[in-house]
């Protein structure tokens, strides 16, 4: 069971390496690219968490645009033009 899972995971890992061309590069290069990918992911995650999530929270079914905009500009200190 576990072996099967490992096998499937390693197969799809191989396929992932294949489509990103990481299959044919050296090990340290692969690690570098994965670090870059992770950093990008974290940055996006942080951006989503801090900016998009707070914006999304303001958009509720009852809220009109007029409610959202001044509040946001006050709360986050952003200037909306």
């Amino acid at each position, binding site marked *: 069971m576990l072996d099967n899972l490992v096998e499937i995971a390693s197969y799809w890992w*191989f*396929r992932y390496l*294949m489509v*990103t*061309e990481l299959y044919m590069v050296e090990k340290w*290069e692969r690690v570098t*690219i994965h670090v870059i990918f992770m950093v990008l992911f974290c940055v996006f995650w942080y951006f989503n968490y801090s900016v998009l999530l707070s914006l999304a929270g303001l958009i509720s079914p009852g809220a009109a645009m007029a409610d959202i905009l001044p509040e946001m500009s006050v709360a986050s200190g952003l200037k909306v033009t």
Partner: protein
Amino acid sequence: MGNFDGDSGTVFEQSYATTNGANGKLPNGNGAAIGSPSNGGLNLNHAEEPRGEAEPFLSQRKFSAPAYTEIRTRRCNANAAAEAKNRSPNYHPEKRSIANGHAKVLRDHEETQPNKVEGILSPEVEHSQKTSFEEVPLHTACLTYLGFYLLMILGYINQLLFVPKVATEKGREGYVTLYDAFESFYSRYVYRRIKDCWNRPICSVPGDELTLKDRVSDDYGWSFKFTGTETRCLNLGSYNYLGFAAATGPCADESEEKARNFGLAYCSSRCELGNNEQLQELESLTARYLGVEDAIVFGMGFATNALNLPSLLGPNCLVISDEKNHASIILGLRLSGATTKVFKHNNMRDLERVLRQGVCYGNPKNGGKPYKKVMILVEGIFSMEGSIVRLPEIIALKKKYKAYLYLDEAHSIGAMGSHGKGVTDYFNVDPKDVDILMGTFTKSFGSAGGYLAGTKKLIDFLRTNSHAHCYASSISPPIAQQIMTSMKTIMGEDGTEIGRRKIMQLARNTRYFRRRLAQLGVITYGHEDSPVVPMLVYLFSKIGAVVRTLTTRHIAVVGAGFPATPIMEGRIRFCLSAAHTKEQLDYALEAIDEIADDLGLKYSNKPRDPNPIIY
């Protein structure tokens, strides 16, 4: 039919002879022809035996170099151990003696099934129905570009951090660099990573099977070491369309005799002391073969294009060239200084647009005066696309606009048409309608060189003006003899049916292989009758993975990547041959099927034929 221990020339003869005689012996004869197991095994053992201490270690690593260790696929993982035990040095051990559907066996069987569109539609529509250029799926296109950018980024990082392991010149301070920066960057950091898939040294005749010399790389392709072992592979990479590349048989015998009587070279050009009876006979034979008035032969196929186009064209000429034309044509056009306009690949509407513009507006560099000559330049079979030129339509256009037509039949001569006379034969057009016929002897004839054929006047003009005729040394006698013997065989002038059988076998192999591939669901390009079969894999690493995996399955193929194709369209190119048997193709198709599943090559969205393909 091993060139390894037997000889394909004789085998062809023998088995055809038996075919003509009694049908009962056939499976046996064929089985014996496909390389006997004991011999193959013995030879390989023999190759490994007398090695020292270090070499067994190297030979163990034959497929365990860094490149190969990473080929782990679902199925391979599961039964890798079992397979390794069972795998014999010969690549299709158990199928050797099975009676089969090979053309030699199924003599009285009906012809291979015709395409459904045949004879129903107009020739133009039929041609485009048989030609397939499937669009790349969007996600694959995006991934390919992403991958390419990643490779570039990694290349720059690598170059920044490490000194590349290449030879550097000393004492060159202050000099400008001699080499193009991007090209050397590309070959160091993209091509080098999968370099083991190209430039592979071989050590046998490239018949239906060949022997690869194994090598390993410990530093990701910067340098290679020979392991001292050899791998016998099914050859799907050489342009040996009619299987005339052989070390034995009538062609080889006559060439040998010629070499014994006339030596190997004349050490002089045709204009000086290099002209001889044999070459003149070769020229008249070539002209007869093609059905035109006269022909002229040269010692190198590439040079035939590159050096003769400048003598036919000059600065005030217009050339309309297909976008997929070969490098030799492009080089020749650049040398000639003619105005070159490119039309979309095999697109007659675009050709007519470019042609009309050229004829109507004249040469803008010359104040809009008409061009001296207008010439259309196309190839018979496009070697990277596997497509066939739409010759009848081009001839109609050429007559309409009074342009000349130069047809490069490098791949199609011998391989196309019921008499092997190239695309003119295939389309049943008069070869005299094509002004200049060009072709090579390198491919179907299993020799070297090229020819130009056409009217007597044209050839006489070339005899006085061509650089390749005046300055290149004349063709070596055994090479010319190989051309003549194989050409006579194809024409049936040797009194046998071998030539016709070979042509039929090639056509049959081609249709079978292409249809089976389409059924597997991989994307192939080109016309279904062209023996060049490019299979699209798109990504660089997939080129590498497919070539490496097929090598472990004992199949040698050639990959083609960016400089030769657009960035996005990496491909594997199979070249079929009359020397292949059905089992060999089946074996290859089986391996390709497995690999296509494992590596995800089945991109095609076309409906697949559910019925089994009849050979």
